């Protein structure tokens, strides 16, 4: 077999090109640490995700390190939006409840197939704040084109994982006391020192609390309805940027009101 010199030259050039391509990719993997989606996660049962995978959420797992557990299903992503702080390292765990989807953060190199039974895991660093769209780029059914979500990378100083909830009565009988149970949940690992502000009528009560990492602190505000008087009273509970509000109605005779209400329903 005689091969023309020019063709030999080209053959060598082509081989160099191929080796060059492989070398570039290897540099990306080893030098820059770009890891592929792999088989490091255990499989899950798509029908029992709540047990295997838990609820969709973001967890704070270390200093500037977060984990996002995302479920893709026709035709939504949960949680939506996914919120993480800037200057953080986030590991995504994504799985599907039904068919094959993808989890693709538009305009970035965060992109994976989401296959039922398998968990895709990938870590990315977010240096700056910004808002990204998340789309499913694998056909998953008739409304595939509507499947989208959001990834919010919020400035570090604006980020927290505080959740505020208030339990209280809607109505109270004149002369009785009623309590507002305020729960402040802190999802971060660090302690949260903050102030709970409770306002009702013209009264304002403040309470300093410290919620340790990954726990919930409860506090109670007691109100004497006599001081408020009969009628509707708006209240608000504020913790940092979070606010819960409602209306407390002070009535003369609670029993009768309820009975009347019941009668009206029938």
């Amino acid at each position, binding site marked *: 077999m005689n091969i023309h010199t*020019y*063709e030999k030259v080209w053959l060598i*050039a082509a081989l160099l090109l191929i080796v060059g391509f492989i070398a570039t990719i290897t540099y990306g993997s080893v030098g*820059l640490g*770009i890891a592929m989606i792999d088989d490091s996660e255990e499989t899950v049962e798509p029908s029992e995700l709540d047990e295997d995978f838990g609820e969709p959420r973001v967890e704070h797992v270390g200093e500037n390190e977060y984990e996002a557990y995302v479920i893709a299903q026709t035709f939504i992503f949960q949680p939506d939006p996914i919120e993480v702080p800037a200057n953080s390292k986030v*590991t995504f765990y994504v799985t599907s409840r039904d068919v094959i989807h993808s989890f693709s953060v538009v305009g970035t*190199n965060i992109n994976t197939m989401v296959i039922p039974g398998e968990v895709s895991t*990938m870590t990315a660093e977010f240096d700056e704040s910004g808002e990204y769209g998340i789309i499913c780029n694998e056909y998953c059914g008739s409304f595939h084109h509507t499947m989208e979500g959001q990834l919010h990378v919020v400035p570090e100083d604006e980020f927290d994982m505080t959740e505020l909830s208030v339990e209280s009565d809607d109505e109270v009988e004149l002369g009785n006391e009623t309590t507002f149970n305020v729960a402040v949940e802190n999802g971060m690992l660090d302690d949260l020192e903050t102030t709970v502000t409770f306002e009702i009528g013209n009264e304002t009560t403040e309470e300093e609390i410290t919620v340790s990492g990954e726990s919930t602190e409860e506090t109670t505000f007691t109100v004497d309805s006599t001081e408020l008087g009969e009628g509707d009273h708006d209240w608000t509970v504020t913790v940092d940027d979070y606010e819960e509000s409602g209306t407390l109605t002070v009535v003369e005779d609670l029993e009768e009101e309820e009975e009347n209400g019941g009668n009206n329903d029938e």
Partner: protein
Amino acid sequence: MSQATEEPEQLQEIGHDEYNPIGTLALIGLYFVILVLLWLFVYFVEFLGNDPTVIGAVLTMVGLQ
């Protein structure tokens, strides 16, 4: 389709030993250069410039910015 006759016919017979595909080498050399430049552009500008990128959980990332 007798149209082959409409084209200029062969003017000379070039045998195996007297033929050097220098034009092919020139064209394919050009192609080689284009491939290398485009590869560098797409990998280092389009791909690495498109961060955040998925990284290993253990490895720290050097030079990814």
